[in-house]
């Protein structure tokens, strides 16, 4: 029996330094993911975890996977996450108070038990033979080695997974697709509706949101000539999401109407 924990590879010391620097950072980032309130911060921390993992892959002679990790995960998947975050509200922050009674202690106990048992299990585990490095397997280069496996031994799973990927893409499209139940009103119809409506107040179009140079002001209602905020100048989605700011700090002071009265 040979202990699993065995030193492998040639770049022993530099790898150790790399590991001991990056591993705590990775764990800290992963823990931070749990603890920060804003989902977008979680996403940033997640991206850093993934980059660290990519470095670990490369350090372990998995060059191809490391690159794919960065391109696919950090690049594509995390972008997708961020995109969705933007869609559902980038500013919304979660309350971290637990709403389900007793769930948090259960989760902590279970996870400590799970992690502790898993780690102690790895510590106890033994491998039947001495460990070898990948230098031999990567003799013709990591990418070639992987390719020869993928397109020979694993060609059937590879094709199946490609079918899965296409199905997933189709599924996402089906899920995200919104079936119109009415025909989309044309511009002409909308224009007609504005003029035939009850009042002509909106005939010229809805007011735009307030524009203030120092602020992305699509979330601040425009001010009407009398100084009051125009609620309908804000996008309905923002309003529903609660990302609307009050225009109070931008409002004018009391309007001086004395000049008119003098007339």
């Amino acid at each position, binding site marked *: 029996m040979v202990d699993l924990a065995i030193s492998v590879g040639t770049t*022993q010391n530099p790898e150790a330094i790399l590991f001991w620097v990056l591993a705590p950072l990775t764990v800290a980032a992963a823990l931070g993911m749990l603890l920060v309130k804003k989902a977008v911060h979680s996403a940033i921390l997640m991206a850093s975890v993934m980059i660290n993992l990519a470095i670990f892959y490369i350090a372990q002679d998995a060059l191809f996977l490391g690159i794919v990790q960065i391109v696919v995960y950090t690049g594509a998947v995390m972008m997708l996450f961020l995109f969705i975050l933007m869609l559902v509200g980038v500013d919304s922050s979660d309350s971290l108070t637990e709403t389900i009674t007793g769930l948090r202690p259960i989760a902590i106990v279970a996870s400590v038990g799970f*992690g502790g048992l898993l780690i102690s299990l790895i510590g106890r585990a033994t491998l039947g033979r001495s460990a070898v490095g990948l230098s031999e397997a990567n003799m013709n280069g*990591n990418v070639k080695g992987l390719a020869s496996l993928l397109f020979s031994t694993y060609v059937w799973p590879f094709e199946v997974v490609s079918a899965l990927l296409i199905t997933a893409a189709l599924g996402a499209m089906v899920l995200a697709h919104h079936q119109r139940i009415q025909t989309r009103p044309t511009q002409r119809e909308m224009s007609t509706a504005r003029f035939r409506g009850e009042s002509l107040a909106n005939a010229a179009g809805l007011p735009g949101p307030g524009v203030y140079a120092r602020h992305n002001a699509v979330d601040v209602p425009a001010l009407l000539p009398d100084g009051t905020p125009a609620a309908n100048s804000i996008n309905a989605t923002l309003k529903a999401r609660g990302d609307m700011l009050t225009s109070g700090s931008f409002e004018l002071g009391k309007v001086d109407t004395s000049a008119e009265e003098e007339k």
Partner: protein
Amino acid sequence: MDAANYLYLSALLFTIGAVGVVVRRNAIVVFMCIELMLNAANLAFVTFSRINGDLNGQVVAFFTMVVAACEVVVGLAIIVTIYRSRRSASVDDASLLKR
């Protein structure tokens, strides 16, 4: 340096991901935690590959990535759909099955 250290790291990351799935309510964060767990598994596969001296572990990690990508695509589409109808991305709000 022990290659097993990577395995300990993998176990730790996996556990953190699991806790995240349980304690976080935001569906997107939950999803990221699931990704973290998958990545932890990938790390273990890559390490095993190194220990065993063949590339099969890396191939499995590669497949895991593809499947994870599929899962993200579909999962996020579901989140968008739920958000569209419920105006919320909290997994606790989607609890209609209990009644």
